[in-house]
């Protein structure tokens, strides 16, 4: 499997799992499916309440204070002061972008690798192509970013954004297909997905 692709998928799964945690009370399930053409598959079905406990543990022992989930994780993440950016700056930048209308935000052509991030109507599209095969397609509705950046200071609403993403896309969080490998992450109430 393409290592970069797999790293991205795992990273996305972890990030999204973090975001899923505060939904414990809804007894929902988060599912991750990774399928490779060459015969490997990974199938994970976890209750979000279980992930919530894992994240509280990670909060105290893994992130080493760079990210603060609060004493009882409520879905909001506060960034520490040692970071290279301030959430407030991102918030201001988003406000500018929001008012700017349709635009191409990022276009990178580097050999066989193309990255495009652009806005059409109220959706941000993220597309990555590599060797004409690797493909990442992610559509982020504006409402998701609005919810993510709501609040004050260095706090973002990760879970709220995830919920908005899921509700906007019928539970679907992320789908990636690079031609050889597919990754799907979604939330529902079915333990087996």
């Amino acid at each position, binding site marked *: 499997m393409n290592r970069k692709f797999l790293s991205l998928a795992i990273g996305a799964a972890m990030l999204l799992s973090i975001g899923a945690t505060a939904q414990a009370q809804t007894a929902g399930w988060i599912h991750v499916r990774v399928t490779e053409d060459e015969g*490997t598959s990974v*199938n994970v079905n976890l209750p979000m309440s279980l992930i919530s406990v894992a994240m509280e543990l990670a909060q105290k022992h893994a992130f080493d204070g760079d990210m603060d989930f609060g004493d009882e994780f409520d879905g909001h993440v506060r960034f520490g002061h040692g970071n290279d950016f301030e959430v407030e700056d991102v918030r201001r930048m988003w406000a500018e972008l929001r008012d700017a209308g349709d635009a191409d935000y990022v276009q990178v052509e580097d050999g066989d690798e193309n990255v495009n991030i652009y806005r059409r109507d109220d959706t941000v599209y993220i597309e990555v192509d590599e060797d004409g095969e690797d493909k990442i397609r992610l559509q982020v509705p504006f409402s998701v970013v609005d919810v993510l950046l709501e609040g004050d200071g260095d706090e973002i609403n990760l879970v709220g954004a995830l919920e908005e993403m899921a509700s906007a896309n019928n539970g679907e969080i992320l789908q990636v297909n690079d031609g050889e490998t597919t990754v799907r992450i979604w939330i529902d109430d079915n333990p087996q997905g």
Partner: protein
Amino acid sequence: MLIKLAALTMLPVALVGGVVANSSIMIVEVDNPDVHIVIPVPLSLVQVAAAFAPDEAKYVQVEEIGEFLPYLDRFIDELRAVPDDVMLVEVIDHSDHVRVFLEDDMLRVRVDEQHGTQVNVRVPLASVAAMVDAYDTETGTLRTTRLIGALRAAPSGDLVHVVDGDEEVHIRMW
């Protein structure tokens, strides 16, 4: 007189026998082409013996795990809420197959490899919960007698079964 003497002589044997009879027995079995070992471990007897062990053996200082145990306790609670047979994790890599699921209040891990290696582990959640209780938060010590008691909470049947070629390891409760 002779009868009394015989009775006194037999008393310790009877006591030990009684303890063993009421005990969960862990059986460790190792089998390979060169050797076949079966070690029955009567846990009640071990627990009683442990009570007479020196304090260093009875109370093991492990302060560093103290902060993790409340999470382990909650993990167990959450796992117990998961319906049986839900496949928590499944990895298929060609002919290798890894499965993690819950069955009868036990976390089960099954690994089947294409070269014939099989690993089958059953972790009784009741035993894990009892192990958490074996930790004394005030002193930061694990009480070994209670750890053994936690093992006794395991239901009868296989706990660990590993088959790797000609070698086989079996740990089961009886």
